Structures are given as structure tokens and as C-alpha cells.
């Protein structure tokens, strides 16, 4: 089905693709390779209290922030 030459080409092209990816990463920083996306909140920092939507706000008494 696939010859050794086919698989050799696949391996070389994959390695070349990885190289291109890392060169692109170095030349165009902005995407850390292994960084985790920023969490919405951490244990050290409580979650931000979001204000209620406008529809609910109109039902609240005036003194509620």
C-alpha cells in the first residue's frame, strides 16, 4: 500500500512542518507554546460579582448596587 519511500517523505515533511511551526512562533511571538488560557478566577482571587442584567435591575429596590 505505502512504500518505505512514502513513509520517509511523510516523516521528513512532518519534521519540516514542526520546524516551520516553531520558526513561525519565534518570529511572531504572541502565542506561548505551553501556556494555559487565563482562568476566569483562581482560588486566591474570588470570582467577580457581575451586576444583574437590566431586566432584573429594574425590579430591585433603589438602594441595591
Amino acid at each position, binding site marked *: 500500500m*505505502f512504500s518505505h519511500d512514502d513513509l520517509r*517523505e*511523510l516523516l521528513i*515533511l*512532518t519534521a519540516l512542518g514542526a520546524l516551520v511551526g516553531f520558526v513561525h512562533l519565534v518570529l511572531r511571538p504572541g*502565542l506561548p507554546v505551553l501556556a494555559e488560557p487565563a482562568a476566569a478566577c483562581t482560588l486566591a482571587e474570588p470570582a467577580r460579582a457581575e451586576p444583574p442584567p437590566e431586566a432584573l435591575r429594574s425590579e430591585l429596590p433603589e438602594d441595591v448596587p
Partner: protein
Amino acid sequence: MSDATSHVPEDMSPTPSRSELGPALTWLARLSLAGVFLAAAAPKLADPVAFAAAIANYQAFPDASVNLIATLVPALELVGALALLTPWRRGGALLLAGLLLGFTALLAVSLARGLDLSCGCFGASASETADPVSALHLLRNLGLLALAALVLAAPRPAGVR
């Protein structure tokens, strides 16, 4: 009076023979596949952060690996597409077929999980609801896989080792 068409040689007939059609179809498959993957790789390379966000939306990979995938996938697409236009076409077709199998599996799992998200196939869209994942994406990928199979069905070019 003799019939003029009876003197037309066999190889001058307007209908291409089967042996001529094979390489032409393979060329068409190579050009189409290369064009699609070049068009897919360019926006992802231009905005890797947006593509990383599109990958994260699939909720299929560990967070730590998302950026690595967003770096490697467009580069592999670019290299595979360019290889299709060179004598290393079979290696390029194998590489793109592998990517397509991965994409198809990811799309199928997302559809089965009922995730409503943007495909991100041609880079991240401005809106998350643009180009939502659907069965059409699976069909498109199967069509592209057929093109890769067509390239692989052609014999290895002479002189390429």
C-alpha cells in the same frame, strides 16, 4: 466521395484516452487539495491566537496543549500543501490525509456531543457563530480525503526516491 473523418488517426480523436485522463485527474486533485490547504493555513498562521481560541472551544484537548496544536497544525498544512506541488506529492498527500482524518474525527465527536461552535477550519471567524460545525463539514472532509486518495493512487513519479 470518401468520408473525411475516417482518415483521422486514433490519437487525434477529441476524446482523451484513459491513459491521458489519469494524470490530468491527479493534477487536478493535487491543485485542488493544495489550494484548499493553503487557503486554510494562511489565516491560521496570520492569527495563531484566534486559532488557539477556536481549538479550545472544541473542549477536546488539555489546555496546555492547545497552543502547541495551534502552532503545528497550520505549519503542517502549509508544508503538506506545498509538497503536493512537488515530486514529493505522495508524502504531502499522506500528511494531509492524516490531518483530515484527525479533523474529521474531531468534528464527528463535536457533533455527537452537540457542541455549538465555529468550525475554525479556515481560521477563526469574527463571530463564534459563523461557520458552525455541521454534517456538511464532514462531507467536505470526506471529499478532500477522496482527493488525497486519488493522489496516492497514482504511481510514484519516476526518479523520486
